[in-house]
C-alpha cells in the first residue's frame, strides 16, 4: 500500500433511509481508505450497502454521521469532482441524444473544450466497443451498449479516480472481456479504481484489494493475495492402523473419521508436504490426495452464510 494521501477516505460512515419508526440503517459505521493507483473491489450481497456507500462518497446522499472525502475534500466539492469519473448502476441515458452528443455533454461538463472532445470521442467509442455508433440515438442502444456508453462517459475526461457502481451490469461475456481490458489499461496508466461488482472473478483478476460489506458493515478488508491464501487447500484421505496415532500437524487441522478412514484438509502446500511425510511415518495408508482451491465467490458465500447464521443465533 502506498503511503501517499488517500484518494478516498471514508470514516465512521452511517447512512440511513426513511424517517421515524421506518428508518433503515443501510451503512453502519464503515471506514476505509483507497490510495492512489490502487484498484479496489467493493463486494457484498444485494442490499449490503455498496451503492449507498458509493453514493454517499460521491455526495449524492447525506450521511447521518461520519465523513466521506475524495482527494482530501468534501465529496460535493467541485474541485474533487473534476478528478472523478463515475459510472452509476444501470443508467438509461437520454434516449433522444446521440452517443456523440451525450459524450459531448458530459465531457463539456467536465471542462473539456470542443476541440478536445472532437479529438477524444471517436477513439473512446472505439475503445468501449462502440466504434461507428456515435451518430446513433441512444434509444436504439441495447442494455449492454448503454453500459458501454456509460463507461465511456466516466472515462472521457481521463479522471484520476474512477468509481464504478456495478461495473459489468448488463454486459455480455464479450463486453466483460473488453471492459476488463479497458480497466487493466487504466490501472496500468496509474488510475485509482474503486468499483463494486457481483462478478467476483472480475474482482479477483483486477483488484489489488477487496473490501467486503455485509448488512452495512465491513466484514473483510484485505489484499487479494491475503484473501486467496486461505482459500487454497489440500485434502488427504487415508487409512490409519488401529495402533497408530495421528500426527500432530494433521490433528490440528481437524480431521474427520469414518471408522478407520480419515479425511483432513491442509491449508497450505508446506503443511501438506509435512503431513504426507508424517502420515507415511505413522504407517498410514494414503488413499487419495486432491487440491481443493476455492474461489473468492465460495469464500464470499461462506462468509455471508456464516454471518447470517450468527445473526439468527
Amino acid at each position, binding site marked *: 500500500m502506498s503511503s501517499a494521501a488517500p484518494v478516498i477516505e471514508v470514516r465512521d460512515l452511517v447512512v440511513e433511509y426513511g424517517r421515524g419508526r421506518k428508518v433503515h440503517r443501510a451503512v453502519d459505521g464503515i471506514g476505509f481508505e483507497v490510495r492512489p493507483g490502487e484498484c479496489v473491489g467493493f463486494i457484498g450481497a444485494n442490499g449490503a450497502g455498496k451503492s449507498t456507500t458509493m*453514493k454517499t462518497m*460521491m*455526495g*449524492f*446522499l*447525506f450521511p447521518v454521521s461520519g465523513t466521506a472525502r475524495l482527494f482530501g475534500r468534501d465529496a460535493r466539492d*467541485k*474541485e474533487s*469532482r*473534476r478528478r*472523478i*469519473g*463515475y*459510472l*452509476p*448502476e*444501470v*443508467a*438509461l*441515458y*437520454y*434516449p*433522444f*441524444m446521440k452517443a456523440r*452528443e451525450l459524450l459531448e*455533454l*458530459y465531457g*463539456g*461538463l*467536465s*471542462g473539456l473544450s470542443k476541440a478536445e472532445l472532437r479529438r477524444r470521442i471517436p477513439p473512446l467509442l472505439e475503445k468501449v466497443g462502440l466504434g461507428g455508433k456515435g451518430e446513433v*440515438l441512444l434509444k436504439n442502444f441495447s442494455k449492454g451498449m448503454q453500459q458501454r456508453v*456509460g463507461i465511456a*462517459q*466516466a472515462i472521457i475526461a481521463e479522471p484520476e479516480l474512477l*468509481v464504478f457502481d456495478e461495473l459489468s451490469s448488463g454486459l455480455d461475456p464479450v463486453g466483460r472481456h473488453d471492459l476488463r481490458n479497458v480497466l487493466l489499461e487504466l490501472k496500468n496508466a496509474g488510475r485509482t479504481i474503486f468499483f463494486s461488482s457481483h462478478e467476483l472473478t472480475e474482482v479477483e483478476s483486477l483488484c489489488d484489494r477487496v473490501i467486503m460489506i455485509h448488512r452495512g458493515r465491513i466484514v473483510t478488508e484485505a489484499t487479494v493475495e491475503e484473501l486467496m491464501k486461505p482459500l487454497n487447500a489440500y485434502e488427504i484421505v487415508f487409512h490409519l492402523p488401529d495402533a497408530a496415532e495421528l500426527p500432530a500437524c494433521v490433528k490440528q487441522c481437524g480431521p474427520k473419521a469414518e471408522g478407520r478412514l480419515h479425511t483432513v484438509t491442509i491449508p497450505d502446500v508446506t503443511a501438506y508436504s509435512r503431513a504426507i511425510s508424517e502420515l507415511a511415518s505413522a504407517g498410514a495408508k494414503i488413499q487419495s490426495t486432491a487440491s481443493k482451491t476455492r474461489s473468492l465467490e465460495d469464500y464470499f458465500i461462506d462468509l455471508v452464510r456464516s454471518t447470517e447464521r450468527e445473526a439468527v443465533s
Partner: protein
Amino acid sequence: MNAIRLIAKGVLIEGVRRREIYAVVLVSVLLIGAVLTVDFFDIEGIEKFYREVALLVMSFATAATAVVLAARQLPREFENRTIYPMMARPVSRLQFLLGKLSGVLLATLFCLAIFMAVYVAGTLWLGHRIPWALFGQYVFLQLLMMTIVATMSFWLSMVLNLDAAISIAAVLYLSASVLSSLVTYIFPDLTTVGRYLLTAFVYLVPQLQIFDLSAKATHGTDWPPLSLATMAMLTAYAAVYSSGFVGLSLLAFRRRSL
C-alpha cells in the same frame, strides 16, 4: 454559465427530437382545419372565430408541452439514473436546475415558434389580417406565462410525484380565468378571515390570466396594443413568480438525497 448552457442544450435536443411536439402540432392543425370545414353558411367575417380557435388550441398545446416537459425533467433523471453521472461532475445543484429550466424554456419557445408559424401561415392562407403589434405582445406574454407554468411544474415535480405535479399545474393553467372570476365574485360574501385567505391566494398563486392576451388578439382590430409600462409590469410579475419557484425548487433540491 457553460454548465447551464450544456445542460439546457441537452434538454432542448430532447425536446426538439421528441415526436410528441410534432404530433401536437399536427393535431392542432387538424383540429383547427376540422373546425373550419364546418359549413359556416358561406359567410365572410369569421376571422375572429378562426383566431379564437387557433390561439386557444395552440396556447393549450404549448402549455401542455411546457408543463409535461418541465414536470418530468427531474423524475426522469432519477428514474433513468442519469442524474448521477451529471452530478458527479463539477456542476452545482443550482446550475443543474437552471440548466434544466433554461432547456425547458427553450423547448417551449421552439414549440411556440412552430405554432405561431403555423398560425401565421394559416391566417395568411385564409386571407385574414394579423394585428401584428398585439400578436407580438401575445407571443411575448405567452412566453412569460409559460415561464411561470414551467418553473411551477418543475417545483411541483420536486415536492409531489410526476402525475400530481402535472395535474396541479394543468388545473391552475386551465382554470386561471375561471378562478379569477370566481374570487372576485365570492369575495364580497366572505367573512374577514375568508377575505384574508382569498387575498393570500391571489398573491401566492400566480394569476396566469393576466398574461392571456388571446382575447384581445382575437378581437384585435378594435383593441390597441398594451403600453410599455404594462408590459414591463407583467415582465416583473413573471420574473418575481418564476424566481420564487426557482428558489423553492433550489430549497427542495439543495439538501435532497439523490
